[in-house]
């Protein structure tokens, strides 16, 4: 027991130090973003005050699940003898409680705090996502052209998750906000799609020789349009007066695609390990809900595009 407590202590100390470094490395845009984030939190509390209490643990569990299936450290922790399920479970419970606490305090919905923590804790014991899943979207991944290599690999890995979201958008399309919510959740998964490493030659061939970043973005956006066409049509049939909701959803996806893509290539350099920093991506995602954050996201986006172009030039000239 002492050993387990000591192990968790070692892990926790490292994670706290790591968080400090991540915040420190956020730099000036991060400092600018902090007051805006505060406004975002206040706006969020105001907006979420009217939703039913069970939505809070549902939302935290979704984000924890998304994190759980994306993390790459479980193999390392297992082989170094950590009790992975417990460590992840406690970590998730702490993070979910901290995230849900302001909203729970604002709405005085205290009963939902243990529910959110318990839901997150259980996620820690879920098995790793299998690499291949036998649903139709992963199968579709095989048919995608090589220029969409990120989606090919992502659909093989997270295909079941994307399939479920897509099916839900069709099956529940009579609900007014369903398409918009599905597109929001879909947009939250896009950064994971672009986190994949790929051979340098492929990147150069596809992005640089294939017409640059903008063309690459266009290709990916076209794919999203094709995937969501049935959902968009159903939305227009059921709710023709609310056509603009579909447009808003598509804009979310377009923005997250651009950001994830620019961020990926801004942090990727030939011959160097990438350092994935979740703060800019989180900011970009929350800007979908609170446009006040858009200037910061725009600043990041321009900076990342400039860096990405520089990295491609380095790779191309090498």
């Amino acid at each position, binding site marked *: 027991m002492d050993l387990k407590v000591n192990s968790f202590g070692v892990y926790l100390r*490292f994670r706290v130090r790591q968080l400090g470094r991540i915040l420190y490395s956020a730099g000036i845009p991060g400092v600018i973003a902090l007051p805006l984030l505060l406004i975002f939190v206040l706006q969020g509390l105001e907006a979420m005050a009217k939703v039913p209490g069970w939505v809070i643990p549902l939302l935290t569990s979704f984000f924890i699940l998304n994190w759980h299936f994306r993390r790459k450290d479980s193999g390392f922790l297992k082989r*170094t003898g950590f009790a992975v399920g417990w460590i992840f479970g406690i970590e998730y419970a702490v993070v979910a409680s901290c995230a849900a606490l302001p909203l729970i305090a604002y709405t005085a919905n205290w009963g939902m705090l243990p529910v959110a923590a318990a839901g997150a804790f259980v996620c820690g014991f879920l098995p790793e996502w299998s690499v291949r899943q036998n649903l139709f979207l992963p199968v579709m991944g095989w048919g995608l052209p090589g220029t969409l290599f990120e989606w090919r690999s992502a659909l093989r890995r997270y295909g079941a998750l994307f399939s479920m979201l897509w099916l839900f958008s069709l099956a529940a399309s009579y609900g007014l906000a369903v398409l918009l919510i599905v597109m929001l959740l879909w947009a939250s998964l896009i950064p994971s799609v672009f986190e994949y490493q790929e051979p340098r030659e492929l990147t150069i061939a596809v992005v640089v020789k294939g017409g640059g970043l903008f063309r690459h973005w266009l290709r990916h956006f076209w794919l999203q349009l094709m995937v969501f066409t049935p959902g968009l049509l159903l939305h227009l049939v059921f709710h023709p007066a609310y056509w603009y909701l579909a447009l808003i959803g598509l804009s979310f996806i377009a923005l997250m695609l651009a950001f994830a893509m620019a961020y990926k290539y801004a942090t990727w350099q030939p011959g160097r390990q990438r350092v994935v920093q979740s703060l800019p991506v989180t900011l970009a995602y929350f800007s979908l809900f609170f446009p006040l954050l858009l200037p910061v996201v725009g600043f990041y986006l321009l900076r990342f595009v400039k860096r990405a172009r520089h990295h491609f030039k380095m790779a191309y000239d090498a």
Partner: protein
Amino acid sequence: MLEISSLAAGYGKTLILNNIHLEAAAGEVHGVLGINGAGKTTFFKALCRLGPSFSGAVTWQGEPLSPTDIGYLPATPYFYPYQTGQEYLELCRHRNPGFPIEKWNGLFQLPLKDLTETYSTGMRKKLALLGVLAGRYKVLLLDEPFSGLDLESTEVLFEILEQLKSYGLCILLSSHILATVRQVCSRVSYLSAGQILRTFEHDDFDTLESSIKTTLQSRTKAAWAEIRKPG
């Protein structure tokens, strides 16, 4: 004595290893050779229960061996972002807090206060190796430990392996560099198509290279004949 019997492993319905039998004594460095895709990494991962399905028996000194008693150095080690070398080793030694990090680092002189992102490939390999040593395991599985190491570090690794042998650890090691395998291993098992074709004793090492060449030539002969065909 490490005894692996009737080991089968795979992913989903695909069986990659079948009916593997292997014995290695305490204080022995046992080489595992094979072409790319022969199943060396799957073999190591299966022993540690890291991913592939597993069936069979693994015992150490006659008792079932727990995966937590097996240290594994992967060919591409994982490092957290924003992690210093010191923090990596602290995580690795959590079961063995007495492991003297500074003393062992004297062998490689790594800048442990720096973030691992700034490390070169060889330095990362050395750090991962120290991490495995910090874990106090009975059996070590080293997947390509020599790849990416400079000449000096290769010599240091030879010394470390000799030291570990004297501690009575059992080490299974995979490598593509035949010369290093010959130098460090007491015996070598040749893995092909998911099975151990043959185990070479130290005295048979002279025949090892020619045996591998013969096996490969029988495979490549037909391919070369096709390539040389006109049109």
